[in-house]
C-alpha cells in the first residue's frame, strides 16, 4: 500500500496531539518546584510523598476494591445472562425485550444513569441505610453498566460455538452438568476473561457514576484527582496520574498480548 507522505505526517501529528498532555504531566511530576510550570530540576520526591499520603493510599484501596468486587459480580451475572439469551428458546417478544434490556446500559448516557441512581438511592434510603452514598452504592452502580459489556463479550463467544459440541457431548453420554463443567465453561473462559478485563477497566475508568454515587468515605482515585484539580493541582497529583497512566499502558499491552495469541 502506497500512501501519500502527508497521510503519515498527519497521523504522527495526531498521535502526538493525543500524547502531548500526558507527556507534559509526566515531565512536571519530576519537577522540583511545587508551584508553576518552570523547570527547576529533577526529583523523585513527589512519588515518595505519594506513597506516604494516606488519602491517596485510601483512594487507591477504594478504587481497587470497587473494581474487583463489581467485576466479580458483573462477570457472574453477565455470563449467566449471555447463556440465558443465547441458549434458551424464549418466545420472540421476550427475546426482544431482553435484547433491549441488554443494550439499555450501553446506550444510556452515563450522566443520566448517574442521576437516576441518585434519585433511586434517595428513595431506597427510606427503606435501608445501606443505600447511604458509599462504596456499596458505587458497586451497585458499576455492576449495572458492567453486566452489559460482559454479557455482550460472552455472547459473541457463545455464538461462535454453535450447537455441534453440545450435541457431541450429549451423544457421548454427558449429563447437562457434566457438559457445562467440561465443555461449555472451559470453552467460554476466554470470553469470560475478556469480558471481566473489560469490566475491570471500565470500573477503573469511570468518573461520572462514581462522582454521583460516592460518599465521604469512598473517595476513589479519579474522584481524588478531580477534587484536587478544583482545589489546585499539586505535583503529587502529576505523579499519581503518571503512575496510573503507566499502569494503563501495561494493562493494554498485556491484554493485546493475550488476545493476539
Amino acid at each position, binding site marked *: 500500500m502506497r500512501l501519500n507522505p502527508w497521510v503519515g505526517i498527519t497521523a504522527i501529528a495526531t498521535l502526538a496531539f493525543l500524547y502531548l498532555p500526558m507527556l507534559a504531566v509526566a515531565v512536571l511530576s519530576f519537577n522540583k518546584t511545587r508551584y508553576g510550570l518552570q523547570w527547576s530540576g529533577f526529583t523523585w520526591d513527589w512519588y515518595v510523598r505519594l506513597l506516604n499520603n494516606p488519602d491517596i493510599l485510601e483512594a487507591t484501596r477504594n478504587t481497587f476494591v470497587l473494581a474487583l468486587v463489581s467485576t466479580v459480580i458483573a462477570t457472574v451475572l453477565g455470563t449467566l445472562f449471555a447463556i440465558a439469551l443465547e441458549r434458551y428458546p424464549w418466545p420472540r417478544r421476550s427475546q426482544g425485550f431482553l435484547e433491549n434490556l441488554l443494550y439499555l446500559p450501553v446506550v444510556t448516557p452515563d450522566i443520566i444513569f448517574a*442521576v437516576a441512581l441518585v434519585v433511586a438511592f434517595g428513595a431506597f434510603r427510606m427503606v435501608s441505610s445501606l443505600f447511604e452514598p458509599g462504596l456499596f452504592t458505587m458497586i451497585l452502580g458499576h455492576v449495572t453498566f458492567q453486566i452489559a459489556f460482559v454479557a455482550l463479550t460472552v455472547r459473541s463467544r457463545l455464538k461462535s460455538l454453535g450447537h455441534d459440541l453440545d450435541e457431541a457431548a450429549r451423544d457421548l453420554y454427558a449429563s447437562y452438568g457434566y457438559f457445562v463443567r467440561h465443555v461449555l465453561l472451559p470453552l467460554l473462559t476466554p470470553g469470560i476473561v475478556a469480558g471481566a478485563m473489560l469490566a475491570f477497566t471500565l470500573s477503573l475508568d469511570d468518573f461520572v457514576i462514581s462522582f454521583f454515587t460516592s460518599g465521604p468515605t469512598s473517595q476513589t482515585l479519579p474522584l481524588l484527582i*478531580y477534587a484536587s484539580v478544583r482545589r489546585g493541582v499539586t505535583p503529587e497529583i502529576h505523579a499519581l496520574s503518571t503512575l496510573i497512566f503507566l499502569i494503563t499502558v501495561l494493562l493494554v499491552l498485556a491484554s493485546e498480548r493475550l488476545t493476539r495469541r
Partner: protein
Amino acid sequence: MNRLIVWFGELTTPAQLYRRGLWFLLPAVIWILGLLVIPGLSLVALSFAERGQYGEVVWRFNLENYARLLGYGIFGWSPDTILILLRSLWVAFVTTLVCIVLAYPLAFFIASRPPRTRYLWLALVIIPFWTNLVIRTYAWQMLLAPDFPFAKLAQGLGLLAPDAGLYPSPLAVYIGMVTAFLPFVVMPLFSSVERLDWSLVEAAQDLYASRIRTFFQAVWPQTLPGLTVGVILTFIPAMGMFVIPDLLGGAKYLLVGNLIQQQFYASRDWPYGAAVSLGLMVMTLIGLALYRRRGKDVDLV
C-alpha cells in the same frame, strides 16, 4: 409446553427449559430492572414534581419543568436552556466531524504498517482511550495554562490577553472532546480499512481518477460501516459529556451535562434536573434512531 423437544442435544420440554433458563436470566434482569429501569422511571416521575423551598421534592404534578426546559421561566421566555441544548448538539457535531477528519489518516497509516508493528501502533491509539478521562482532561488544563508555551504564543500573537490562559474557553472544550473521542472513531474505522478491497482503488486509479475522486468513489463507501459505528460511539456520549466542559469550559461554555449536574448539586432542583436529563435522553434516542436508519443504508451500499 409439555411436548418433548431436543434443544442443543438435550431431551427436554419447553417448560423445563424455561424453568432452568430463568435461573440464568433472573439475576441480571432483576439487577438491571432494579438499578436502571426503576431509577429511570423514578426520574421520569420526578420530572413532573416540584422543587420545594429548601430544595426538597414536592410531589405535585405539573409540567413546569418542561416549560422551563423550553425556556419559559418566571421572567418570561429566555433562550438560555435551549441554547445549552443546541450548544451540546453543536459541540457533539463538531467533535464528531473533527474526529472523522483526523481519524482517516491515522487509520490508513496504521493499516499501512507491516503486520508485526501494526498492533503496536493500534495500541498507541487504544492507550489514551483507556486512560482515565479526568487525568487526560486536567492534563490539557496544564498545557493550556497561561504560562505554558501555547498560551504564551497566543499572547505574543495578540490573540490572547497577557497572562490569560487558553482555558476555560470553547476552544479548550473542543480540544478536550476531540482527544477524548478520537480513539472511538479510529478503532472501528481501522477495522474497516484493514478489510479494504484495494483492487477497487487500483481500478479507480487505472481509470485516471483523481486522488479525491478515487477516495470518494473507491475508498469512502467501503469504510462506511466502520465510520458509522465510530460516529455513534462519538456523537451520543459527546452530547452528555460532563467532565470536559466542567474542567475546560468553565462557566462560559455550559453543556447539558453541566446543567444536569448543577441541578443535583449547587441548585438542588432535582425535578428540573430530571426534566433536563430526559431531554438529553430524548436527543440520544433520536440519534440512535437516525443511526439505525442510516445503518440500514450502509448495509445496502
